[in-house]
Structures are given as C-alpha cells and as structure tokens.
C-alpha cells in the first residue's frame, strides 16, 4: 500500500518557509502559485494514499512511518511517527481538498491586500499543522499539531494587526486554546504515568499489552484499557482529552473565542473556523474512542456538552445580525451535533457529519465572503437585502449551503445529521435512559432553530429591498476601516446604491461551485442503504452502533427532523422572507439574554480575568513591594545602622565587599589547615 503521508506534510511546510522568508519580494502570481500549488500537491498525495487504501482491507490499511526519534529520556521514548489509516486518510482528504479550494478562493478575496504573501504563508502553515494533527501517530505529535493549528489560527485572526478588535480576538483565541493544550498535556502525562507509552498503536488499537497476565484477554480494546488502568483513571484521561476537544471545537464552556475569531479574513473563517481546525476536537474523540469507551461516564459528559452547546449556539444564532457571527454560532452548534453522535457511540457518524459540514459550511462562509466583498466590507445583515439580482451565483450557492445546513433532503447535511439523530434515538430506545431522550429532543429542537436562523440570514440578505448605503467598492473587509472616498453628491443622489456591486470573479466562483456540488451529492457516500463511509472507518473508529435502518423508528426520526427543519424555515419565511424584515430592538428579556450571548463573556471577565489581574496587582504592591523589597531594605538599614562604628569599612565599593568575602573564605580554609 502507498504511504505518502510525509509528503503531505512536507509540501505545505515548504510553502510556508518559502513564502515566509522570500514572499515579500515575489510577484503576486508566483505567491499564488506556490501557496495553492503546495496544497494541491498535498491533496494529490492524499488522494493517491486514499485510493491505494481502498485496494486493501482490514489491518493492512493501517501503517506507521517513523521519521526520527524526538526524545528519549528514561522510560520515555517519543518518535516522530505518522499513522496512515482510514480515519487519517479521510481527514487528510478533507483538510487538503477543502483547504486547496479555500486557497484558490483567497486569490480572489485577498487580491488587494498588502500582506498577500504573509496571508498565504500563514495558510500554508495552517495546512501543515492540521495535516500533522490528523496524521500524528502518537499523542505528543498530536499536541504539536494541536498547538500548531492554534498558532495559525492566532496569526490569521490577528492578520489585520492594526485593528484592536482583531488583536484582542487573536489573543483570546490563543489563550482559550492554551487551556485546551493544558488539558491535553495533563492527559498525556497521565497516559504516560499509567501506560508508559504515548503511541496510538499501543494505546488505542488492539494491543495485547494491557491484557491481565494469565487471564483471558478481552477482545475489546476499551475493556483492556479499563481492566489495566481502572475506570477512574480512564475517566480522568478521557475528561482531560475532552477539555482539549472542547476548547478547540468551541463547545461550552470554552466557546467564547470562536465568535470573536470572525475578525479574521473570511477565507480563514471558512478554512480554520468552520471546515477544519474546529473539527479537531471531534477528530480527537473519534481517534481516542477506546479511551472514552473505557470510561462510559465520559461519554455521558460528551453528550451533555454536545446537547447544551447545540441549543445554546443555535439560540444565539437566531438573534445575531453580523452574517459571519450567525455562521460562527451555527458552526458551534453543528460541531455539537458531531459530539452528540459520538456520545451515542456513533464515532463514524460524527466524522461523517464533519465531512459534510466541511463542504457546506465552507461554502456558506465563501458565499458570505462574496457578499462582504461585494458590499465593500459590510457584514451587518440589517444593511443588506435584495442582493439576489446583483449576486445570483452567490445567492444560489447560499441557498444550497443553507439547505444542506438545515438538513433538507437530499442535501449532504440531511444524511449526516440523520445518522447522528437516529444513533441518539437508537441509544435512547435500547438503554431506556431518559437522558438520551432529552438529548434527542435537544437535537430536534436545534434542527428547527437551524432552519430558522439559516433562512433568516438568507432572506434578510438576498430578498426584499436593499437597506444599506451606497456601495463604493474597494476590495474586501480589510479596507473597511480606511476612509471611503465620497462619491459626488449631486450625481450620486439618484443613483442605484448597488450600481457598482459586481458578482465574484472566477477565482472565487469556481471553488464555490465545486463546494456547492459537494454539498448536494456529498452525503451519498454514507446513506442508510449503503453506509459506505461507516464501514470504511471501522478499523479506526471501531464497530459503529447498529442503526435502526428501515424500521419504523428510523422513518419516524427522519420525518421528525425534516419536519422540524421545514418548520424553522417556514417561520423564517413568515418573519423575514414574505415581507420586509424589521430589526427593531426587542424588549423581550429572553431576546436580550440571547443578544448578550447569555452573558458568558461578561461572567468570565468579571469572575476570572479581572480577579486575576487584581490579585497580581495586590501581590505586586503588598508582597513584592512591601514584604520582600521592604524586608531587604529593612535588613540593609539595620546593618547600616548597627555598623556606624565600622563606617570605614563601608566604602560602598562592591569590589571591597568581594575582597572581604574572599579574604574571609581564605581565613576559614586556613583555620581548617592549621587545625590539629
């Protein structure tokens, strides 16, 4: 079997280094060529790997490549190992494939930006780090990739570094993600302390090492791990991994960075904060499924976080007016679906939704970027409307993406969301546990909300009358802060405010069309009739839950979720589509609560950030200043005062003190020599 994984990592790395060092002096065409070319090469390698993997079966699909020894210290041996298996193959296809399309889109979107080379170099860095994250063969290099994508995200959120809001958002994203890194590091420490290794091949897959000596060995890796380490240790490891997953995938309670991350350029939001990086948490849970299964309580925690985050984000999305923030909360909500599926035991179902979400959410962000680009940086849907005629291509892409997001048959989101919801329902009926029914209800309610906020967005932007000021095109959002040149007052007065709005060029249109096509057909590789992806992933994510395909329960779930989505779309039509929408401030306390995002940001600021800073200041003044420094002065003063008679010795020259010390030392030595 072919294994080109090292090349998949190497190409984007080369792109990053080349553009980072020399990009400033290169012409734009060459920058685009290098930036996109390296990702295309990586994608080609990923396809080749994937195709060759289809030719073999079972254990032969997984192979490790060890590149070098990172560190050896006592019993700890960490190699730079890359694992090629069905899960990493699927993830690499998504990362490099969707990544390539977004690189191409960026050629158009960032065309007028001064830091063109910097942008592409950071994007390449991101692709490198993300491929490392999904291809790593042990937890340490997972952490390296994990932090690397966090870094790329930080650099790209703060890409327009002279904007205070972008700088603050970048820092917030970084620090919150470091909380996740902290969890992952502790998980690694505990794994090493317990098992003495960090390799996936030993920890996660079918390793006889953990079998009790002389006893019958369980067939199930999770049971072996639990038997070896005990339930409580496994629970601790799983929960620490979950801290990392929750931070990276913007789930409660560490979601606060994602909406602010929309300060970055829109291609970044599409690539990092929708299609790939934020799904790393979902990937981690699927990858480490044996660990989670070894402590079933951890999956219950995943379920609670997933259900709560889904509803939490979907409700906030309903009142946002910034089109990118609507999509950001929608991303959080959709990621929560993936966690719900995983919690119910459908790890491959979570990955399936990850892939379909990558298509339609990247598409939606690209289409949103096209709108922002056309409106010279405007992101507020209250100042939009009626753009359907000016931006027909964008409109239809938005509709396709929106239908997929709302999970309407037969778009790809329908298939994957249905897989998740039916696995939750299956879990509920087989276990009879009330909690799973609640989770299922949360999933259905979120489906209705999703339909509502998605089409509220589409209707408000594309239907009705245009509500904003005249558009003076000057590229994308990055120039928004620059003073726009005023058009000639007299002539402008009667002009169509959208006269100069243009549909996107080919560099942006082609990737959008490809993703639109994928959003339509992308679900067909895993349908209830032929769950192909599910079967392909079995070696990586374990046997999936038996879905109630074809039964009455199955049809019930499909009809219910579809009805919920259509209900949501219908309400959106009634309020925003059939008439000119109004965005008057609401006095409904629940709406105010939503507009303040449940006050979570304020709570963190008051309960965590400010107390820490206040503590630091208090310590500086009273401990550092008075107790320690003052103590020193006190002792110094005491000595000074007591030795007035010895003033002659206090020359103030440090060298004299040193000489005295040295003389003293010699005297003491002499004493010991002369001593009998």
């Amino acid at each position, binding site marked *: 079997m072919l294994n080109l994984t090292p090349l998949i990592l190497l190409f984007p790395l080369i792109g990053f280094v080349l553009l980072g060092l020399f990009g400033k002096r290169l012409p734009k065409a060459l920058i685009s060529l290098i930036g996109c070319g390296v990702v295309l090469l990586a994608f080609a390698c990923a396809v080749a790997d994937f195709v060759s993997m289809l030719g073999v079966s079972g254990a032969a699909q997984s192979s490790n490549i060890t590149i*070098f*020894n*990172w*560190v*050896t*210290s*006592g*019993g*700890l041996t960490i190699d730079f190992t890359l694992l090629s298996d069905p899960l990493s193959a699927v993830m690499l296809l998504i990362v490099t494939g969707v990544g390539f399309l977004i690189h191409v889109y960026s050629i158009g979107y960032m065309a007028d930006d001064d830091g063109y080379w910097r942008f592409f170099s950071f994007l390449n860095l991101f692709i490198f780090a993300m491929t490392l994250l999904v291809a790593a063969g042990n937890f340490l290099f997972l*952490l*390296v990739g*994990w*932090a*690397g994508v966090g870094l790329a995200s930080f650099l790209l959120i*703060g890409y327009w*570094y*002279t*904007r205070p809001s972008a*700088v603050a958002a*970048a*820092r917030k994203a*970084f*620090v919150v993600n*470091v909380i996740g*890194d*902290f969890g992952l*590091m*502790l998980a*690694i*420490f505990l794994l*090493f*302390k317990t*098992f*003495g*290794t960090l390799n996936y091949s030993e920890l996660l897959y079918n390793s006889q090492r953990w079998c009790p000596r002389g006893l019958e060995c369980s067939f199930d890796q999770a049971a072996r791990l639990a038997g*070896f*380490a005990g339930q409580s*240790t496994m629970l601790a490891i799983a929960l620490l991994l979950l801290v990392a997953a929750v931070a990276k995938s913007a789930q409660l309670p560490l979601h606060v960075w994602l909406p602010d991350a929309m300060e970055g350029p829109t291609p970044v939001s599409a690539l990092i904060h929708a299609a790939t990086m934020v799904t790393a948490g979902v990937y981690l849970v699927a990858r480490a499924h044996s660990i989670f299964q070894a402590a079933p309580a951890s999956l219950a925690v995943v379920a609670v976080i997933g259900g709560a985050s889904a509803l939490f984000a979907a409700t906030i999305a309903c009142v946002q007016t910034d089109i990118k923030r609507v999509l950001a909360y929608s991303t959080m909500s959709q990621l929560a679906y993936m966690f719900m599926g995983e919690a119910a035991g459908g790890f491959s179902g979570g990955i399936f939704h990850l892939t379909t979400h990558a298509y339609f959410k990247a598409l939606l962000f690209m289409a949103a970027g096209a709108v922002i680009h056309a409106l010279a940086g405007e992101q507020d849907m209250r100042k939009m409307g009626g753009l359907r005629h000016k931006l027909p291509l964008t409109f239809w892409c938005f509709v396709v993406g929106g239908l997929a997001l709302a999970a309407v048959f037969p778009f790809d989101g329908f298939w994957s969301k249905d897989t998740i919801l039916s696995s939750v329902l299956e879990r509920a009926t087989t276990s009879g546990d009330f909690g799973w029914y609640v989770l299922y209800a949360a999933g259905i309610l979120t489906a209705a909300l999703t339909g509502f906020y998605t089409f509220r967005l589409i209707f408000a932007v594309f239907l009705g009358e245009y509500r904003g000021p005249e558009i003076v095109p000057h590229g994308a959002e990055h120039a928004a802060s620059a003073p726009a040149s005023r058009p000639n007052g007299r002539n402008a007065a009667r002009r169509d405010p959208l006269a100069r709005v243009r549909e996107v060029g080919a560099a942006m249109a082609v990737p959008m069309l490809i993703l639109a096509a994928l959003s339509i057909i992308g679900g067909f590789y895993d349908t209830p009739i032929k769950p192909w992806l599910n079967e392909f992933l079995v070696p990586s994510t374990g046997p999936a839950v038996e879905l109630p395909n074809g039964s009455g329960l199955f049809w019930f779930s499909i009809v219910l979720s579809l009805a919920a989505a259509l209900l949501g779309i219908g309400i959106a039509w009634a309020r925003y589509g059939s008439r000119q929408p109004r965005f008057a401030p609401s006095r409904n306390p629940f709406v105010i609560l939503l507009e303040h995002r449940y006050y979570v940001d304020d709570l963190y600021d008051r309960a965590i950030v400010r107390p*820490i800073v206040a*503590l*630091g*200041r208090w310590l*500086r003044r009273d401990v*550092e200043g008075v107790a*320690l420094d003052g103590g*020193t002065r006190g*002792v*110094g003063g005491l000595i000074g005062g007591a030795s007035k008679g010895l003033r002659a010795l206090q020359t103030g020259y*440090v*060298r004299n*003190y*040193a000489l005295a*010390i*040295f003389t*003293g*030392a010699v005297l*003491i*030595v002499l004493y*010991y*020599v002369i001593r009998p």
Partner: protein
Amino acid sequence: MNQFPILSVILFLPLLGAVGAALLPRMAGWGWSLLVTLADLAFCLALIGQFSTTTPGYQFTENRAWLPGVGVTYALGVDGVNLFLLALNALLTVVAIGASWNVARNGDRSREYFVLLLLLSTGMMGVFLATNLLLFYVFWELMLVPAYLLVGMFGGPRRAYAAIKFVLYTAVGSLLMLVGIIALGAIVSDTSHTAFTLDLPALLAHGAASLPRETQIWLFLAFFAAFAVKVGLFPLHSWVPDAYSEAPAPVVVLIAGVMAKTGAYGFVRFNLGVFPTASRDLATLMGILSVIGILYFALQALVAQDFKRLLAYVSISHMSVIVLGIFALNTQGVEGGILQMVNHGILIAALFLIAAYIEARTGSRRLADFGGMAKRTPWLAAVFMIITLATLGLPGLNSFAGEFLAFLGAFRASVVFGVLGTLVVIPAAWYMLRFFQGVMENPESGTVATATDIPRGRRGGAKLSDLRWGEFGVLLPLLVLTIVLGIVPGLLTARMESTVQHMLPAITASHTAPVLPNTTTVQR
C-alpha cells in the same frame, strides 16, 4: 594524562581574552574578545563531538595538586550535566560580546567592560567545570565580582541600588555555602578517617553521599542558600527584577542566561549528587517553593508595566520550572531541568536583546507607551514573534521540550505539583502575548508614533528602523537553536542520559516507594 587539556583551554580562553581586551585599543579589543570567545565556542562544540554518551562519570578529567594540605586540587571534569552548560556559556558570551559593539564604539570605559565580561565568563566556566569544591567556590566568587561591577558601573539610573541588593543577597548565600563546603570536607574526613579533601569524586568515594540524615539536611540547606538566590527561587528573588532591569542587555544575557543556571546546576551537582537522602526528604519543600514561584512570578509578569521587569519575572518563573523538574528526582524531571537550562538561556538572552533593541528605538520600556511597531519594524516583529512563541512553550519550539519533560517528571513524582506547575502555560501565553501584541500590534501610538521625532543620540534613540544586520546576526544563532532544539531535543537528552540514570538510583534507592498495582511497566 597526556591528552590535550581541552577543559583548561575552554576555561582559560576567556581569561586570555580579558588580558587582550585590557591591552588592545577599543575596537580591536572588541574584535579580539569576539574572536577568542568564538574559539572557545568552537572548543565546546568539539568537546560535544568527542563526548562519550555511554560514560556516566566525568570525562576529559584534569587533576593537579594545588594546595594539597587543604585538600584543594585543580580538578576539572565534564559529564552529562555540565556538558551543554559549557556550550551555553560560550555561546552566550559570544552573543553578549557581539551585542556590545555599541559599547566599544562609544568608548566610555569600554576596556573595563570587556575585561569584566570575559572574567565573568571565565568564572562561570569554572563553576561548571570544577570538580573540587573549593575550586568551585573560588570560581563562584570570581563570577560574582565582575557581575556586581558590571551592574554597578554600567547599569541604568538605579544601578547602585540594584548592585547593592545583588551583593547583599548573593554574599549571604555564598558564605553559607562556604561554611557548608568546609563542614562537608571535615565531616567526611572525620567519619571515614581519611585525609581532608574537597575533591568531589574522592568525597563521594569516602561515603559523602551516605551521611546521616540530619547532617545531610543541614548541609543541603547551606548549599541551598547560595543556589536558590542565584536561581531566584521564591522568596529569595527580590534582587532579580532590579538587577535585570538595571543592567545593560549584554550583561543580562550573561547573568540571566548563564549565571542563573549556576544555581540550578549546583542543585543537580551537589544537592542531588551529595545529599541524596536530604534531597528526597526536602523534595516536597523544593516542589512547593518552585510551584509558588512559577505561578507567583507569572502573575507578576502579567501585571508588570516595564517590559524589562516583565522579562525578569518571566525568567525566574521559568527557572522555577527547572527546579521543579530537578526535584522530581526522576529521569524525565532532571533531564528536562537540564535541557530547560539550555533552552531558557537561549530564550532569555534573545528576549533581553530584543527588549534592548526596542528600548533603543523608542527610548521607553513602559508597555503603555507602545503600539503598532510591527508596521515599521516587520523583521524585528517576526523574530520577536518566534521567540515569544518559544517562550510561552509552543510545542515544536525548544522550550516546550524541556518544559514537557520537567512537568512530566513533576507529574510522575506528584500529581499536585505536576498539575499546578503545568498550569503556568495559561498565564504564560497571556503575559507573552500581552508583551508582544502590546508593543508590535494595534494602531501606532505612544513613543512608536513619535519615534522618528527623537533626534539621533538623544534618549538613546535613533529613528525607528527595522532590525539591522548586526542585530540580526547576534540573534540568528539563538533563533536557529530555538527551532532546531525544538525539533530534535533528543540530541541533548541522549548525552545526559547515562549520567542522570547513574545519579538517580542513589536518591531513590533508600526510597521505599509504595508499589502501585498498575506499575507493571516500570519506567525510570
């Protein structure tokens, strides 16, 4: 003994440089110093090349009688603990001399300056190399004197206060250590009925490491006093922010980059090596002090307003991580500690140089005065970014490897210390980004916006120019090592392995560890 005395050459080359610097004209003195220290670095690299990874004990030893009656010999040796510290000292001396070009050009007392800098380097080399305790002490004092003078003569406006404070703290610590050294020699000679000696291998052969527990604890504490002050361990750190913020950058490169390591080195060499029982029994105390220091200093860095003081706290917070690793008393912890000594030296040197470059361009080091500098100094910003990321422990860069091992070691020894120590990664990201973003990003403001108006020469500021070639050249080796040692830290740990593995059983042997049910795969 007929082999080439490479350790003596490494030790005395800087001294030779000092002699030349005293005699030659200013600029020639600078060039000469640079040349000599580069040669010194080359010898250190050759030493690393020749070093045997399988020998646990001292290699390339030199031993000559000096004052036989007092038990003092001229004895040098290198093993897995000090090998890379020699190279670090040589490298940072080169960097410090290279960065002192302005001092040579402007001339004021530049001869004294270079002589002292090179004497300081020799002193630190001797501290790392000496295997006789009194020789160690001689170099220890030899290192302190030039350091006081450099801070006191060439520092900022509050240099006198900073230097006196430095003297007060270090002198008390050193004297206690001297008492400890002599007491150790006397006690060992009494109990083993052998001649009085202060040679470390001889002392160990005479059973120095198996003294009664009480004695060990007193001696441990005597050595602790000197080393903890040097490291800047809580609560003995009060001299650090003053000294680091007043001293000129090249001096801080040596004081924070290398001299602080002599304390951490002393902990490994003497406290762990000679007082194993006390080390084991006091490990909890050391852990508590380290963890308090790690978090308390991080908090101080978070609220610091002057960025040199911020860096001083960053430095001691990270030094506390090293001590935490060392007193985890397992292979990962100790190797992580030593590895981190090297990484910390590289990064703190780069940070103080960058801070000096920023101050030279704007005349200020108050964070509130800054904003948006990256637009006008993109390369400085890029280098600063990489060093910032390494300092906050980004996986893939050098500091991560050392911290990872140190925290892992600490975690294995005590979950509480491991968790609390590792927690520092969160404030670390916060304070480093506060520094980097506060200076480089946001709209142009404060001194950055007005920097071009400062006439050349006044307030130490020229016009706000990007990184110059000379400045970049000084940072380049640090930058390269930051990246390389992040990718292959194993290059260093492989050479520590056998020494550390050999040292630890003495500590853990008497340790009756509770046998956990799960430790079927026992690791060191």
